[in-house]
């Protein structure tokens, strides 16, 4: 036998639950989305990251093939800090790399590197 009162509470909690799910993540992901969007712009901008000079990236045109395609980045960099470190100064991993030292040579600011990191991690 169903208890209508109980059903109601269940429904309410389901609504509450969905509410929680739909409200909180929406605001978070909207913010995230805008950071990712900004990161993407910076990454594609020839005067900023110009990552496309060397890396294939989804959504980018006329990409070079000097570096590996930037795909499945969460799998390759579960640790976001490691990804950031690679973008900040790739010489730490490969002293002779052609990839520019974006941080130490002030090609990008810390904030720009943060945003690019968010974008690249989303790929």
């Amino acid at each position, binding site marked *: 036998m169903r208890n209508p009162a109980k059903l109601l509470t269940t429904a309410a909690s389901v609504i509450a639950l969905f509410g929680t799910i739909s409200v909180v993540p929406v605001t978070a992901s909207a913010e995230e989305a805008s950071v990712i969007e900004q990161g993407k712009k910076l990454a594609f901008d020839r005067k900023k990251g110009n990552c496309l000079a060397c890396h294939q990236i989804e959504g980018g045109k006329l990409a070079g*093939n000097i570096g590996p395609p930037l795909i499945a980045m969460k799998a390759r960099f579960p640790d976001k800090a490691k990804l950031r470190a690679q973008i900040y100064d790739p010489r730490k991993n490969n002293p002779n790399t052609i990839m520019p*030292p974006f941080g130490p040579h002030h090609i990008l600011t810390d904030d720009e590197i943060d945003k690019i990191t968010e974008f690249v991690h989303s790929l």
Partner: protein
Amino acid sequence: MKKIALLATAILTVGIAPIAAQATPEDDLKAFRAYFKKRFPNTPFEEFANGNYAKGIAPEDKRNQWLEAEEFPPYELPLEKGKTLFNTPFKNGKTYASCFKNGGKGIRQYYPYYDPKTKQVKTLEQEINECRVKNGEKPLKWKKGDIAAISAYMAYTSRGKPLSIKVPNDPDALAWYERGKHHFYAKRGQLNMACADCHMYNAGNRIRADLLSPALGHPTGFPVYRAKWGSLGTMHRRFGGCNKQVRAKPFKAQSDEYKALEYFLNYMSNGLAVNAPSYRQ
């Protein structure tokens, strides 16, 4: 005892290190060629003279387009002008031919060369201007225009002749060579890239849409006619452009730095035939 042993080691290290570190130009040349042979196994040696249009490096359609462009090349007019300028006497009645061996014909392959008298590396463009000044004319501007046209004509009379650059076993000549070599391999500019990063380790790869040419063969087509320039340009013009790309301050055309770089690059391409002027996108 221990001290003596230590001292002996120190002397040994000092004594050996320079020998091991200082590869001769001949050693460098062998290693350089071997590197590109391995990187491009389907490119015959003489094809490297064609830059990024070479067989085994360029995609077929890009190579064919270039071969077609070379049939009716856009450098025909400046080349013709270079010939006229070369043959037109100065006000004193003398011509360029009077300043060069063999009347200036068929000698491109020996440039640049080390001149023991002045302890300088001399480039062809430099001697074109020296010839003018000696004969009471004003020097031409470097990089493009008349000097590139004259240089192109002189190179044209040398087509097919293999580059024959010598680095004599003389400390000053070797210093010039080492300076050029250093420029080629050293990281520079805000972007921290060496010529070798693009034209050796990534030759044949694309940076954005541009296919990177191998450094082996770089000099043979210069001065080149570049569509992007819409005119002929000397090697030093290109060096400046490539320095700027990595946000490094370019050196002046005909500066010692670029003369040394040209000396090194031309030596590395010894044996490849002059095919200047050449067309580039």
